[in-house]
């Protein structure tokens, strides 16, 4: 074990949102247990590329470092995933890092996920509880249902499912699987259910639910194991009923 083990990275970089992208290669000393983010930090400490030239540190997003915030998603060896939980030991070398192509690039591996947050607003992914006076406690949620809903609530808006979806691209306005599944989550809540129709109607709008073409890549890719395609199919059923009510009329609001 005389010579040091090294790790090779090929990183797709881009200096400004509009400039052309280029690849830069880095060779780092191997350390046991290192992950993609610790490697990026190492490059930041000593920004020298594989040719020995001094370069700029790489820009990327991160926050929790434990796969719960979703900020650090990028394409690692072609697959979108969180860089904080991507262990170098488990990756094939050279390790290729690229920004997720579905989102506007800010710089290097850093992307702008605003469209997801806008979609969450659009589908009203919250529970309205504010009134001009204290509205009192809401209805109780059965424990079994709470446990089930907890799985849906794990979504961290990481964008992996949008990156994996063939129908989310520059040619379509599809909002993608994540905000759809949130509609199912909030419609399942006993208080949230009171605004069920509005959320369903929001996803019946342009760019909404019907844009799903069932490639089912999202459910295969979601790092949180959220049953996205089950959510989509369930919402298809709910919107079928909602459309029926809207068109033929209903004695309920």
């Amino acid at each position, binding site marked *: 074990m005389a010579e040091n083990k090294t790790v090779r990275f090929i990183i797709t970089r881009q200096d400004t949102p509009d400039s052309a992208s280029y690849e830069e290669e880095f060779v780092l000393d191997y350390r046991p247990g290192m992950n993609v983010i610790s490697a990026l930090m190492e490059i930041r400490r000593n920004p020298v590329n594989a040719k020995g030239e001094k370069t700029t540190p790489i820009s990327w997003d991160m926050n929790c470092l434990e796969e719960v915030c979703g900020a650090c998603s990028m394409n690692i060896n072609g697959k979108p995933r969180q860089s904080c939980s991507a262990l170098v030991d488990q990756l094939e070398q050279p390790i290729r890092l690229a920004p997720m192509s579905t989102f506007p690039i800010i710089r290097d591996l850093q992307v702008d996920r605003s469209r997801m947050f806008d979609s969450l607003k659009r589908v009203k992914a919250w529970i309205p509880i504010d009134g001009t006076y204290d509205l009192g406690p809401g209805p109780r949620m059965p424990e079994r249902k709470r446990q089930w809903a907890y799985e849906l609530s794990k979504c961290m808006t990481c964008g992996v499912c949008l990156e994996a979806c063939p*129908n989310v691209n520059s040619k379509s306005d599809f909002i993608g699987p994540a905000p759809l599944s949130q509609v199912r989550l909030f419609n399942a809540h006993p208080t949230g259910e009171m605004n069920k129709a509005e959320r369903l*109607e929001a996803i019946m*709008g342009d760019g909404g639910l*019907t844009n799903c*073409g069932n490639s089912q890549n999202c459910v295969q890719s979601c790092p949180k194991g959220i049953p996205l*395609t*089950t959510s989509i*199919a369930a919402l298809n059923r709910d919107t079928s009923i909602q*459309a029926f009510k*809207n068109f033929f009329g209903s004695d309920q609001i």
Partner: protein
Amino acid sequence: MTLWFFQNFFHISIFSVSVFLTVPLYESKMDLSQYCKKCLLFLPMERLETNSSVFDLDIISNYQRGVYIMAQNREFVWRRLHSLLGVIPIGVFLIQHLVVNHFAAISEEAFNNAAHFMESLPFRIFLEVFIIYLPILFHAIYGIYIAFTAKNNTSRFGYFRNWMFKLQRWTGVITLIFIAWHVWETRIAAAFGAEVNFNMMADILASPFMFAFYVVGVLSAIFHFANGLWSFLVSWGITVSPRSQVIATYFSIGVFVIVSTIAIRALVAFI
């Protein structure tokens, strides 16, 4: 008995298709772009856009909101119509067409009789326009649009359903090319006086190239229909659980195998 079935079946289909064709047409006559999204009052839109995350929608009825949704956001209606037409009437027509063709596997005379029976159905042109031409035209045009708004990524995500997604789009395009040629060669030729019968098909399929073209075209239409049935069940929220979707996959494979056997037997019978 058979005659009764066909006559009534066609009338029922015509009725349901006309209803579904009229809904979006009726809605599209209303221009609601000038109206407030929430209450359908005539108000400038910009002022309302700025505070759109409101929950005071309950003051208007579901019906009003529904009218708004359908008039303003038509994609939902178009997409569901596209999905429905793929099964009723296009899918039903496809099966019926292939079953009639299969008479060729029995005898030349049986085929000619069956074809003649179909030709002599009452209101033939009306049936053709409303059950075949218009639905296929709509489904194909909108289908091309859908197919070309996708960015296939099977090389990065080689999952089974992603392949089916891609094949659904490819077979749609192949089927369109095939149908255009097939209609030109048979129905349009018939309009110019050619007689559509066993001999006509035997002539066409005598060429090995055309035989291969027909096999590819017919198989792609059947694949598209069988896999389309699977996604139809999801699109309308019939198969929700993963298990029901897996069973539907087996079902759609079964449909593909059985219908393909019927179709290929008929094609082979012409040579």
